């Protein structure tokens, strides 16, 4: 029972070394390789995910910056357009007012000229009628130059007074 046998000891040591070499290569080596590869894979994926997240955050801030810039620009354009439109409106209104004032002035001038002309015509007519009436009254012809001038003078005096 307690007999140490050298051949068995040597055989067992050799057997153990062979089994160790075999299992190290084909069992532990392979499984450890897979474990390491998976660890590497996971590490890489976590790293890439973190990098992607950082990139996304950066892009987001960029977009936000751009967006706020665009908003400001839009507001500026809108304000410009509004002032321009206001100016154009004011110009138009001013032109229209100017035109209407001019037309009115012309019309007034024309009316005044017509009035003058009419007044002069009426005066002439009245003078003729007066001369006619006076000659009828006087029974003589008042065709002479002096008479007519006298009547005219009288009429203009009367007209001024009237």
């Amino acid at each position, binding site marked *: 029972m307690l007999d140490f046998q050298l051949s068995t000891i040597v055989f067992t040591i050799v057997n153990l070394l062979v089994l160790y070499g075999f299992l*190290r290569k084909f069992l532990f080596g392979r*499984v450890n390789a897979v474990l390491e590869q998976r660890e590497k894979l996971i590490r890489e994926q976590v790293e890439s995910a973190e990098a992607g997240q950082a990139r996304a955050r950066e892009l987001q801030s960029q977009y936000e910056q751009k967006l706020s810039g665009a908003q400001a620009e839009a507001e500026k354009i809108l304000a410009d357009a509004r002032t321009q439109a206001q100016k154009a409106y004011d110009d138009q209104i001013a032109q229209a007012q100017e035109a209407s004032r001019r037309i009115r002035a012309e019309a007034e001038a024309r009316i005044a000229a017509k009035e003058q002309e009419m007044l002069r015509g009426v005066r002439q007519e009245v003078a003729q009628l007066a001369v006619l009436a006076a000659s009828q009254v006087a029974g003589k012809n008042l065709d002479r130059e002096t008479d007519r001038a006298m009547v005219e003078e009288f009429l203009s005096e009367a007209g001024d007074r009237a």
Partner: protein
Amino acid sequence: MEALKEALMGALENHVAFTIPVLGGIPVADAVVVTWIVMAVWMILALALTRRLSVRSPGRVQTALEAAVAFLNGFARDTIGPHWRSFAPYLGTVALYIGLSNLIGIFGLTPPTKDISVTAALAVMSLVLIYGAQFRYNGLLGGLKKFAEPMPLLLPINLMEVAIRPMALCMRLFGNIVGAFIIMELIKFLVPAVVPAVLSIYFDLFDGLIQMAVFVFLTALFTGEGIKDAA
């Protein structure tokens, strides 16, 4: 009673399976033949289980295998320290070998660990591993200094341990397996049916695995003791 004694003694003898007829005949014990069977089983299993390993989509078998290897790695890391990487495969090999050797009695074969020469060989390997690591990772001087730790007074005890540790490893494994073997033989002699099967669960399965764990754990512990704080 005499018959039982004779049968038991006969069962405890280490039979020689055959003799290689060179150098005056090299005897090959039963234990060595069964060891070859154990090795064949593990080699075939290793090749079969590590076919088609996948990094991205491990199957159920691969997951179990990875968990086992990760457990072994974790155990080696905790016990041996920073240099665990080169020791884990050896500890795993010894665990698989002793484990199946202790359990192979269930299949009607003689457990190799019932042969004291086999446990002696295992102990010699552990001795080489423990003190080889101590000198490999501390250098010659540092390895020698380790014998004077934690205090120089313990130098004689530490030196004696060089012999005591493997002796204890050898005898513990051998004694437990032989003890379980003898008890099982006695029970089989007294009650041939049912009871041996139930008790075999304790003496063959449980004790066999416990002794495997003890052997591997102590080897790792002693190795770690020598190199745990080595750079």
